[in-house]
């Protein structure tokens, strides 16, 4: 029996950004003998370079591709990321960390946040919640170390990277080309479709070259050249829930610490990111154009950044939502071509990675079966929908009323799926249980509590412990974490020892 009917599936990837090269590298590395990959990229079209900050899942992707962490970090000028700091979200002046780890020890039959809720409701003076998460404490301390093994507190977290996305694509390109991916430079001028099936037969380039394929992967970014423009797959617009539609980005020199976390600072009409890399700090203001002009947004960002600007501010336009289906006919869209969710929780590269993983798990034959396609769409839709709810929560759970933007998001109707989650939390500190999906219990706890939603009830099993005993164990835990964290290396010096970028750079 032949491996696949008729040999290799000819995969044509359109677009050479992060999504395009991640896809190409993964397919040639993981499906040798099944996929021949031909990537088309245009020099004249810029790269968005989305997602300088990532989620811990990226480590698994890199490992699968055999990427050496220190080498990858040095070449993309990467730093470590233990979580995201949210400033001014629930109220101006607030700051909390969404850590990539648990609160408390992560063991025990009743989750830590039930005890915490009870103490809050009893009006006890408590330390910052961050200090009871190992990852949170490590982040606040400006420290980094690889997680320990063996069930200790120092093993209750994961980590991700903050890196220069414009350097990541070339890094993957080298891997992909070494493993046999073909690359053609050119701009797509037309898409040739089968009159009957509507499938894409070939793309024509400005050079006159024609590239045929069995499967076309649209990594063309916001243009969505194949899925959006050629196949006209409708777009499900979520901007009534996520009204930000522009970002102005501007890197600057790093003046303060190279923090092992990304910051998301709420602004009058959106929020601002701060992503420290080895050589500079990325900044951007994500805003809703209905509430602030481009000029005012640019000015606001210019005032807020900490150091000298390293480039002129650049404005990006987008709309929250996704294509109704990501895979139609023989065309799969990956990355921005399939949809967009603002980078508040660093999910862009994660969504690319999940799409690639699903494509590999459901890799088709030359004749594509609806079974593979439908399953792919089911899996991807679920990812988008769950992230969407989590993002909306950040805007909804606020008491801010200092600008029309915050008035709108605070009072807007939210999806039923999110209302149910919130109700369950408010009632008895329960998190809607699911195992599949990116943000699990501690993430929801961090945002709920960080933005001031304290449940009215908690798990009754907590009531068997006396308040004094609870306070003692909270203090013991805080002290143990603080003591352990104090012995860990400073983030900057860890990087210098482990993965410093080349000096010439």
């Amino acid at each position, binding site marked *: 029996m032949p491996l696949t009917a008729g040999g290799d599936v000819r995969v044509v990837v359109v677009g050479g950004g992060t999504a395009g090269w991640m896809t190409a590298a993964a397919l040639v590395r993981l*499906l040798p003998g099944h996929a021949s990959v031909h990537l088309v990229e245009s020099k004249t079209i810029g790269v968005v370079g989305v997602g300088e900050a990532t989620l811990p899942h990226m480590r698994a992707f890199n490992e699968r591709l055999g990427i050496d962490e220190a080498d990858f970090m040095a070449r993309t000028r990467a730093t470590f990321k233990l979580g995201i700091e949210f400033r001014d979200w629930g109220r101006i002046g607030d700051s909390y960390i969404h850590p990539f780890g648990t609160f408390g020890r992560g063991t025990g039959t009743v989750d830590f946040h039930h005890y915490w809720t009870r103490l809050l409701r009893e009006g006890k003076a408590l330390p910052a919640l961050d200090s009871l998460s190992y990852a949170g404490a490590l982040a606040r301390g400006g420290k980094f170390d690889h997680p320990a093994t063996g069930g200790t507190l120092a093993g209750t977290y994961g980590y991700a990277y903050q890196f220069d996305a414009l350097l990541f694509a070339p890094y993957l390109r080298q891997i992909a080309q070494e493993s046999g991916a073909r690359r053609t430079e050119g701009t797509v001028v037309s898409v040739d479709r089968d009159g009957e099936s509507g499938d894409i037969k070939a793309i024509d380039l400005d050079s006159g070259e024609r590239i045929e394929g069995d499967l076309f992967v649209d990594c063309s970014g916001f243009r969505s050249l194949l899925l959006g423009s050629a196949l006209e797959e409708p777009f499900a617009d979520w901007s009534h829930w996520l009204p930000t539609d522009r970002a102005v980005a501007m890197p600057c020199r790093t003046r303060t610490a190279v923090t092992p976390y990304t910051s998301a600072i709420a602004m009058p009409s959106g929020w601002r990111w701060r992503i420290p890399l080895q050589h500079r700090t990325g900044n951007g203001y994500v805003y809703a154009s209905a509430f602030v002009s481009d000029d005012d947004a640019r000015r606001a960002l210019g005032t807020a950044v900490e150091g000298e600007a390293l480039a002129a501010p650049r404005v990006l336009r987008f709309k929250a939502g996704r294509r109704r289906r990501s895979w139609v006919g023989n065309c799969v869209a990956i990355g921005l071509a399939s949809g967009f969710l603002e980078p508040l929780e660093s999910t862009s590269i994660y969504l690319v990675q999940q799409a690639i993983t699903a494509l590999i798990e459901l*890799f088709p034959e030359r004749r594509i079966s609806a079974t593979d396609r439908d399953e792919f769409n089911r899996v991807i839709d679920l990812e988008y929908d769950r992230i969407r709810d989590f993002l909306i929560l950040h805007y909804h759970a606020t008491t801010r009323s200092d600008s029309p933007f915050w008035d709108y998001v605070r009072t807007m109707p939210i999806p039923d799926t999110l209302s149910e989650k919130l109700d369950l939390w408010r*009632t008895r500190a329960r998190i809607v249980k699911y195992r599949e999906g990116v943000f699990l219990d501690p993430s929801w706890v961090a945002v709920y509590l960080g933005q001031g939603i304290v449940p009215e009830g908690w798990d009754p099993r907590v009531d068997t412990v006396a308040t004094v005993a609870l306070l003692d164990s909270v203090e013991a835990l805080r002290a143990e974490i603080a003591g352990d964290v104090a012995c860990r290396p400073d983030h900057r010096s860890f990087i210098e020892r482990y993965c410093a970028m080349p000096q010439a750079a």
Partner: protein
Amino acid sequence: MRGERLERIVVAGGGITAWCAAAALKRHAPSLDVTILACTPSPDALADRIACTLPSLLGFQEDLGIGVADGIVRTGSGYRLGTLFVGWAAGLPDYVHAYGRYGTSFGPAAFYLHWVRSAQDGTAAPFDSHSPAAALARAGRFVPPTATSPFADYECGLTLDLPRHAAMLRAFALHVGIREIVGEIAGVTLDGDTAIAAIRLVDGSAQSADLFIDATGPEARLRGSIDAVRDDWSAWLPCDRVLLAEPDAEPAVLTTVTAHQAGWHWSSGGQAGFAYAANAISDSKAARVLRNASGATPGEPIRIRSGTRPQPWLGNCLAIGDAATQIEPLEWCNLHLALSAIDRLITMLPGRIATPVEVAEFNRQTRAEAERVRDFLAMHYRTAQRDNPLWRTLAATAPPASLAHTLVQFAERGRLPFHEEETFARDSWAAVLIGQGFLPRRVDPLVSTIPAASVRTAMARQTAAITAALPHVPTHAAYRAAQTRHLTR
């Protein structure tokens, strides 16, 4: 209102399910006042009457603090490593569904996907020969999973001596502080449309509580007094009668389940049974079938109405076991579903008055779990290959949507989609599907990135390791005897 604490729970029921619920609630939330109303057990409550259990019972007992000595050895339980299916797919050998891994994978694709390629090449040994637990079970041998040996990565269920087990659980429950009231239910006094004010007893007394747990079997004496809404599963699960018999035999480490034109019959040592469709065989003929198969005289037929309550929890009354879900005992899920509901209640304990969101979330999870168990059982019929009218009808019946999705994905390329609240592991699904000859059309590309020859060698090495280690493991009977000796010494 939300601040008020849950204080008093009454559990109604006289079987294992009720004792498990009462003991677990008191053990995990000691401040609760838990009373059991121990009424006469319902003869039709399968969760209380089927001797074979899934591995979940062991974990449940362990969480309560009931260890091997009290929870297994002193109650005369046997270990179960799996089920042998005989006659489910004509022309194919019998197969074992064991509770553990089948093979060790090579690379990113699951082992069973590699096996599928070997099968297409015609070089595969039977799928269950790659399962250490299945090999032990077929040989009648037993050892608890041991990480450093080939006999690792599996779990075991039990074959219970039901009266002794119930007595043990009762003693344990009383020991941890359960109050026992012996009496019969005369009726239920409602408070509004969806709340129970009190249970009236035959002796004229009444029991009130914040929360009532209905473990009274299919009659659902409490929950049934509020409403009778249920989802019917009989289109996919044909058996509506079960006969039980008690042959005089030692518990078997491998339970044999044999397909019959009217259903299936089984033998687990001390308990034998026949699940059948009443429209395919008469009760008296069915009794003869079971007597011939087991050598023991069956009792009265138990009636099953396959289906579930979409809202096992309504108001202040929560149904568990057969009061919530009735399902034929194929794959031994009856007690398992009850234990799972008890665990879920404990992790979702409400205040004195449960809010609708809490109840809805409990019901959502419980229903999803029950429906997925239904799917697993329905899959046995849907993919069986037998040429009798009953079986042909079942094989032709459109499956529930969630099962259809799994079957379509598996048939195409061997994908087993993830489901929340899934009871059975992917290897369990694969063991039955492959055992019944339901094979994927395509070999997954991730499999063929590894050369077939090296996979063949590695697979052969794995089975050889199992075979070589097998003779050094004691027989199930010897293992049990040694455990008993150890205790009495």
